[in-house]
């Protein structure tokens, strides 16, 4: 566990409900975590597990019909649960920045890069255009964009995807936020670019001493940058803990299934079969009972249908939600790291 010293964000039992025609959809069903300055939390899970909604919930950007509840939602020590749109708007961009998955469409095509960068700064800092411009150039330089000054006059469509994501990162950093949330920042990019961007993010995070929440489905990324890992499945945390702990000894069948899906340099033999997690994510509408992973779990028994989803916490903070005891999972299915 981290030293609880400078906690930036505390989330306790975050739930999101969305009414749909078939009933009430529960995409997020009680997520808790905290993240401190200088720390990177990775939220991992496959599509539809609620990880992106979690990030939007923190930013206050959920769709209007979504209902957000939490036992605690503290940001920089302040309870932001009841913040209205105006109050949230004062936090966003200045105290918390966000980087999205799709750099190709996340920039407004009608305005220049410079305009879009400067407007954050002008909005939140009482400053003039000149300072905003200097800050923009400084940050573009910082995110590795050459000849930053001339880039300011360019429109998004004149830039490549990688460059646009760098611009997005610069934009999130314009006001020096305390928290940065990156929602699959590299998914849409070429593999070669992915590494650069990730490296850049990690570097900037330590440079600016921010807290970072990195949302991804790519465990490879997690292994490289995370301090803490949170594995989500069907709207709940199924396993969380220090990066090393989780990777060394995954305790939830889902985590171990995910880990089997990635090749590990030096450990995965050529020709060796990579694993998969068969099946699909269950329907999250209506009243839900038991372990949601049971229909895909090789260890599932009838017991799992009734199971309360309460986590088992080990002494190092490593927690998981499964009826299995820590040693019951076959060693061969996990722990290859």
């Amino acid at each position, binding site marked *: 566990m981290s030293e609880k010293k400078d906690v930036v964000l505390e989330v306790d039992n975050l739930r999101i409900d969305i009414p749909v025609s078939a009933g009430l959809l529960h995409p997020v069903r009680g997520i808790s975590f905290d993240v401190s300055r200088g720390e990177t939390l990775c939220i991992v899970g496959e599509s539809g597990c609620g990880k992106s909604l979690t990030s939007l919930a923190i930013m206050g950007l959920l769709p209007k019909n979504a209902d957000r509840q939490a036992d605690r939602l503290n940001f920089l020590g302040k309870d932001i649960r009841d913040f209205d749109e105006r109050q949230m708007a004062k936090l966003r961009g200045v105290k918390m920045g966000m980087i999205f998955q799709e750099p190709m*469409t996340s920039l407004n095509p009608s305005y220049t890069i410079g305009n879009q960068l400067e407007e954050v700064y002008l*909005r939140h800092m009482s400053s003039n255009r000149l300072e905003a411009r200097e800050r923009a150039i400084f940050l573009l330089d910082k995110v590795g964009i050459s000849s930053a000054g001339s880039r300011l006059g360019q429109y998004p469509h004149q830039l490549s995807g990688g460059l646009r994501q760098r611009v997005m990162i610069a934009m999130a950093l314009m006001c020096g936020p305390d928290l940065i949330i990156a929602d699959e920042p590299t998914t849409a990019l070429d593999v070669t670019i992915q590494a650069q961007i990730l490296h850049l993010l990690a570097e900037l995070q330590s440079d600016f001493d921010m807290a970072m929440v990195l949302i991804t489905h790519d465990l490879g990324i997690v292994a490289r940058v995370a301090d803490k890992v949170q594995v989500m499945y069907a709207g709940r945390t199924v396993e969380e803990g220090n990066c090393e702990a989780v990777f060394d000894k995954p305790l939830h069948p889902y985590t171990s299934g995910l880990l089997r899906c990635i090749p590990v340099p030096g450990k995965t033999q050529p020709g060796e079969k990579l694993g998969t997690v068969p099946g699909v994510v269950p329907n999250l509408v209506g009243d839900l009972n038991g372990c949601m992973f049971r229909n895909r779990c090789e260890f599932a028994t009838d017991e799992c249908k009734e199971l309360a989803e309460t986590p088992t916490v080990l002494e190092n903070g490593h927690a998981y939600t499964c009826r299995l005891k820590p040693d019951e999972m076959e060693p061969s299915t996990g722990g290859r790291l």
Partner: protein
Amino acid sequence: MLAYTLKRIVVAFLILLVVSGLTFSLSHLSADPALTIAGEQASDEDIEAVRKLYGFDRPVIEQYVNWLSRALQGDFGKSYHYKAPVVEMISGRIGTTMTLGFLAIVFALVISIPLGTLAAMRPNSIIDRFALLIAVFGQALPTFWFALMMIILFGVWFRWLPISGNTTWAHFVMPTIALGYYATPALMRLTRAGMIEVLSSDYIRTAKAKGLSPVSVLFKHALRNAIIPVVALAAVWFGFMLGGSIVIETIFNLKGIGWLSYDALLRSDLPVVQAIVLIFASFYVILTLLSDLLNAYLDPRISVR
């Protein structure tokens, strides 16, 4: 951009050429201008003389080329009926039609953009349903019928508004509403659809994540992008409205070129009809050209295409 503009201009000219050719042949199918010119009491010899004098005995192609070459010099001939130069007749009346068309399109935009935007911001809300109602009703309401109903109610019954003529701004209120309402549904639907799409776009999410004020998100980031197709459509509709002005001007006794074209058709006054068709077509062509160029300016991606 320059090449794009030039290409568009050449195409525009070609279109006008074809339109003028079609109109010319159509109108010469319809009537024997010699009869119209010669008048009520003319004898056969008079008619024959007129035919020779005006060259109506020549092949249509030759007549067309002659007409076109004079039209290009700004001479559309003389009205068969009123004996006045067509250019003079039209220039004295076009102002009324332009005023009406302009007011109507402004009215349509003033109604449809805010309403479409509000509807898009709150889909399925009361205001969205109200907007939909206006759109659905507007599309189904025959313009002339709507105009007559307004005359009965606001002109005769309540006497709030003057019924005919063009002397004061009040005279334009009913014609503007009648004509503008006709364009409102299309513009509003497009605003709404565009706004919904834009509001759900990633860059609006980015703008919100940047903590921009809702006003800035809406006006700076959303509206500008959503409005691009609306501007294009409004230009097209302005062209349609000139056509719609025929009925409206006749009902409200606005003596613009819409009425003039109606009057000319009743009298088989071909030079006037041809000139007005060409003017309407030019308007359409020029407006679409301008709106394309404006779009290229508003949305820098277009000129690259």
